[in-house]
């Protein structure tokens, strides 16, 4: 059973189509990363998944049940939508108590546990309005995670966190997924999605333009060998003579795309040394997710 399943979701705001025919599914224990530019429709989709916005067309199934006003499994879901705000005059503990009550929980220890897990212990009695951006983000995550949900829907979960916080949250989310939680997250930090997600969806102008697993993505990323020698024109001549698909790039370095070159870059070094054109550097360049993402949306 899919944890999230949407069918042909469409939502218009006036003349703007915020999401256009989006059908996705997320499996149990999966981390699904959602990529898109600002205004692409990510947050609208997240709000539709949470029942905050009704689609004009299409349906949402969560845990195999139709999302409707009668949907009851909200305690199986934790969420963070856009900037995590808190009641400014309440402390971290009091803010969590508000949601402890609204989630109708029965174990007061969950508040201390989540405070400890998200390293908020030193700030637990501070008012939310004096927290740093990073700690406000931790408080938002604490609200989303306090009740140990089976599904986490997170919009930009690492926004505002320092590098240490990013690593902690990444490990926390990975642990949750290992323990069986399903995670649906959007982020503009594409490298982070790549490190976390099992599957990635790319949304552009409201449409889901690509959906692929991380291994599929890695196959689709452009890889090439970059070579730099004291005389790149001569080196290029030798390489093309030996059937390498080599060209000079805009930095006047040699780019080689052959599979054979990618598999055995050492042969290139050997050849150039033999031709008295020893390389200063030979390295494997892999397109990052950001470049892939931009390439994908530009070709659509």
């Amino acid at each position, binding site marked *: 059973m899919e944890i999230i399943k949407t069918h042909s979701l469409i939502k218009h705001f006036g003349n703007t189509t915020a999401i256009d025919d989006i059908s996705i599914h997320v499996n149990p224990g999966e981390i699904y990363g959602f990529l898109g530019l600002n205004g692409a429709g990510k947050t609208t989709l997240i709000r539709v998944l949470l*029942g905050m916005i009704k689609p004009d067309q299409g349906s949402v199934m969560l845990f195999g049940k139709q999302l409707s006003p009668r949907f009851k499994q909200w305690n199986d879901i934790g969420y963070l939508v856009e900037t995590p*705000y808190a009641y400014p005059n*309440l402390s971290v503990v009091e803010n969590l108590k508000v*949601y402890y009550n609204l*989630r109708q929980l029965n174990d007061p220890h969950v508040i201390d546990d989540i405070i400890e897990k998200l390293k908020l212990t030193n700030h637990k009695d501070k008012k939310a309005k004096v927290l740093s951006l990073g700690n406000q983000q931790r408080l938002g995550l604490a*609200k989303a995670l306090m009740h140990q949900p089976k599904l986490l829907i997170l919009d930009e979960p690492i926004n505002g966190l320092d590098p240490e916080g990013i690593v902690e949250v990444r490990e926390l989310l990975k642990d949750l997924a290992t323990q069986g939680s399903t995670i649906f997250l959007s982020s503009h930090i594409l490298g982070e999605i790549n490190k976390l997600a099992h599957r990635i969806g790319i949304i552009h102008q409201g449409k889901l333009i690509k959906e692929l697993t991380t291994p599929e993505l890695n196959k689709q990323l452009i890889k090439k060998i970059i070579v730099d020698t004291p005389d790149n024109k001569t080196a290029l001549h030798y390489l093309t003579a030996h059937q390498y698909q080599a060209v000079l790039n805009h930095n006047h370095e040699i780019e080689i795309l052959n599979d054979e070159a990618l598999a055995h870059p050492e042969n290139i070094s050997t050849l150039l040394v033999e031709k008295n054109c020893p390389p200063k550097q030979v390295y494997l360049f892999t397109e990052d997710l950001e470049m892939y993402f931009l390439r994908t949306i530009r070709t659509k």
Partner: protein
Amino acid sequence: MSGQVQALKAELIKNKYSTILWVTFIAFALAPIMGGIFMLIMRDPEALAKAGALHTKVQVMHIVADWNSYLGILTQAIGIGGVLVFGFVASWVFGREYSDGTAKDLLALPTSRANILNAKFIIYIIWCMGLALSNLLIGFFIGTILQLPSLTMSLVSTYLTTYFTTALMTIVIGTPIAFFAIWGKGYLAPLGFVSLTLVFAQIIAATGYGYYFPWSIPGLFSGAGGEYKAQLNGLSYSILVLTSIAGYIATVTFWKLADHSK
């Protein structure tokens, strides 16, 4: 029922440390204090003679420095000032979630959206009743210090009934403010609505049709309109109750069914 209790607990935590709670009590306490100053000046003919505008008002309203006049002032303050202060409370209770940015965190929870709004309405009623009670106690304290004459049990009984009925009317007519807070996603729309109702309540009451305008009715009932109170009839009270019910239904329906994109 459990969901309603939990929602109320959450709402109590939210408001416990809110500065605005004390601000409303202090602001509303100005009414009995000003009424007390009024009484003090009237007991001193020399001071009254110097207070030109006040002197004229006293003559028009036949006010004397006794409990009857003082309790009348307190009741009128609820009927007219209450529309403003209670409106401010409703704007805060319902609009704060948007200014705090927390509205979105209340929409996908096991506690229903209706329970959350009902908890807010309960807090609004308790808060406003607290304000009414606090002003009454301050009023009795000031009146006792000033040793105002003519305090009888029947007078107290009559005024307490009118006072609390006026307070209740002013509270129930606040439900549309909740709708404007949620529809307008913040304080601005409800505060604008409160200002408009206050202005129209005065204008319409002055034209003699206040008994058909819901926001004039508490003021007229309090006696602020003098003989116009006699014009209030079953239809007037029905209009007030129907406006309140319509405000409540509109608020809950909008909160449950509208798209929440903020």
